């Protein structure tokens, strides 16, 4: 059992890691692959590729608009695997797929896992799937040696933090604030407390996400967490300035690593 994600954490923990989120298919599948490659070439350690979904309840307007654009342009779920393989062929960084559960369920949890493994994908981040409901996915993840990243929230009880920790492999996704995705001026102070509580629950690799958009915020988060996760800010850069803007922002953000 080897986790691509664990390996990167082990190697780079002392500097802290930068995790970058982009939706697949935005603005096109090829352009999202190019942008993902540009992220890695400019200091992003782990990629999170979002699977566009019709009802993204965890997402704010920036991600909603981008994933809507991808769906309207005809993005199909099966393109995920080719896109992941294309990224892996060009850069050496783990690619996690961030997806709401229904697309995986409809494709077939086992089939999805098999094809993700074949494409060289690292695993899944599941924003609307809690470990309590995840037995089918956990079984497939084991069978295909895939990482599974569950979320932990400031509101989670100690028992639930333990469950997220125990069931995650790769890292635990600490939601910095009670809210949805989108850039914010301040990273919630709740994040620090949550990371401390996750450490007590036994979590080794902890990424903090939601609202992070500047190098200062990356640096601040990496004082207590192992990884900082940036999404909406990268999408805004991609939408406004294309691949070169996303590359520039990634380079700036990675300067926040220690």
């Amino acid at each position, binding site marked *: 059992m080897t986790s691509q994600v664990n390996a990167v954490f082990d190697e780079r923990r002392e500097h802290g890691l930068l995790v970058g989120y982009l939706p697949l298919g935005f603005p096109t599948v090829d352009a999202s692959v190019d942008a993902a490659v540009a992220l890695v070439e400019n200091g992003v350690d782990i990629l999170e590729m979002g699977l566009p979904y*019709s*009802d993204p309840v*965890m997402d704010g307007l920036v991600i909603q608009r981008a994933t*809507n654009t991808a769906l309207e342009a005809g993005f199909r779920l099966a393109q995920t695997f080719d896109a992941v393989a294309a990224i892996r062929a060009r850069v050496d960084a783990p690619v996690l797929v961030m997806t709401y*559960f*229904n697309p995986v*369920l*409809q494709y077939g949890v086992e089939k999805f896992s098999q094809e993700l493994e074949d494409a060289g994908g690292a695993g899944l981040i599941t924003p609307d799937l809690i470990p309590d409901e995840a037995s089918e996915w956990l079984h497939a993840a084991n069978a295909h040696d895939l990482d599974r990243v569950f*979320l932990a*929230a400031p509101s989670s009880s100690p028992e639930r933090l333990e469950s997220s920790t125990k069931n995650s492999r790769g890292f635990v996704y600490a939601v910095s604030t009670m809210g949805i995705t989108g850039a914010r001026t301040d990273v919630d102070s709740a994040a620090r407390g949550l990371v401390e509580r996750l450490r007590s629950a036994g979590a080794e690799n902890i990424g903090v996400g939601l609202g992070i958009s500047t190098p200062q915020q990356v640096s601040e988060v990496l004082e207590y967490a192992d990884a900082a996760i940036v999404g909406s800010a990268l999408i805004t850069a991609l939408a406004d300035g294309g691949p070169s803007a996303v590359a520039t922002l990634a380079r700036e953000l990675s300067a926040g690593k220690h």
Partner: protein
Amino acid sequence: MQQGPYFGDFGGRYVPESLIAALDELAEAYELAKLDPTFTEELAHLHATYTGRPSIITEVPRFAEHAGGARIILKREDLNHTGSHKINNVLGQALLARRIGKTRLIAETGAGQHGVATATAAALFGMECIVYMGEVDTQRQALNVARMRLLGAEVIPVTTGSRTLKDAINEALRDWVANVDNTHYLLGTVAGPHPFPQMVRDFHKIIGEEAREQVLALTGALPDAVIACVGGGSNAIGIFHAFLDDDGVELIGCEAAGRGIDTPEHAATLTLGRPGVLHGARSYMLQDADGQTMESHSISAGLDYPGVGPEHSWLKDLGRATYRPITDDAAMAALRLLSQTEGIIPAIETAHGLAGAMEVGRELGPNATLLINLSGRGDKDMQTAAEYFGLLDGSA
């Protein structure tokens, strides 16, 4: 009686971790409240002095002539304060929200009836109220938007996705994730994550409990069929529940077939959907091969939803209830027929159940007795009806 979080393979809690603490708190508070006589008495008192319960039943012989001559009895939830069954659930949840110290109520609404009921409860209890409503629905149910605002609620038109009920629920969930500390999400139907399907059902099962007694007293026997329209499924589950163990009573839900189930424009979730996860629960839903939710269509905002409550999915698979699709045109014809034969103008949602009863009456024949949940009144639908039938001077 199934208590959730699962109904067979359906139900569950497919929501972001951030919401789990609130769902746990709610489920626990509800379990305690159920057993607490002060809570049940408080709710019963409100129903007696505010809602207007028990609601009456009305037999409708002139309408029944068009339904194969079967005996037809209406359970008059339209006579409740605010004009529909929705108030039963709203008062229950608002009391519960107050118990757990929440000061802000948020709700989604399609037809606006649930939003009006929630705005009403917020006014009654002195709570802040925000209602999310798809932009399309704010237009076709403009009168209800004005009612909610007059009651002091803020109505937020939702402009994402299909701009109908499904998207209003998404926005309400996003609000709840961010404001869960002081906010209760007063979900308006038997969908969503546990404990909503079970709790909302429990607040509505008074409909069937009253109706079963009333029909027995009137006719000396149980009805042959109990019929209700199904959007998310709350009025249907509310009237079905008291009859679940009565094997001889057919339970029939009527969902919206829109322009027809052979067209893409329908909301026939149980007829044409397949199981998936939407809005926190596993249930039948309308979706494409990739699991993307498909847009639904119905002339009635309250049935224009591509999902359905998990208990209905379970009852369908068990074979205990059956579900049939009713087109926009059939529903509108039934709406006019009840208005003109009995002087009762039903909501367009409700008219789907009436149209279904006309079919069922013809199938079962003149010896049958049918009980229909008249879930709401049609005042809110006058604009749509006037356009559909050309009722205003100067219109076609």
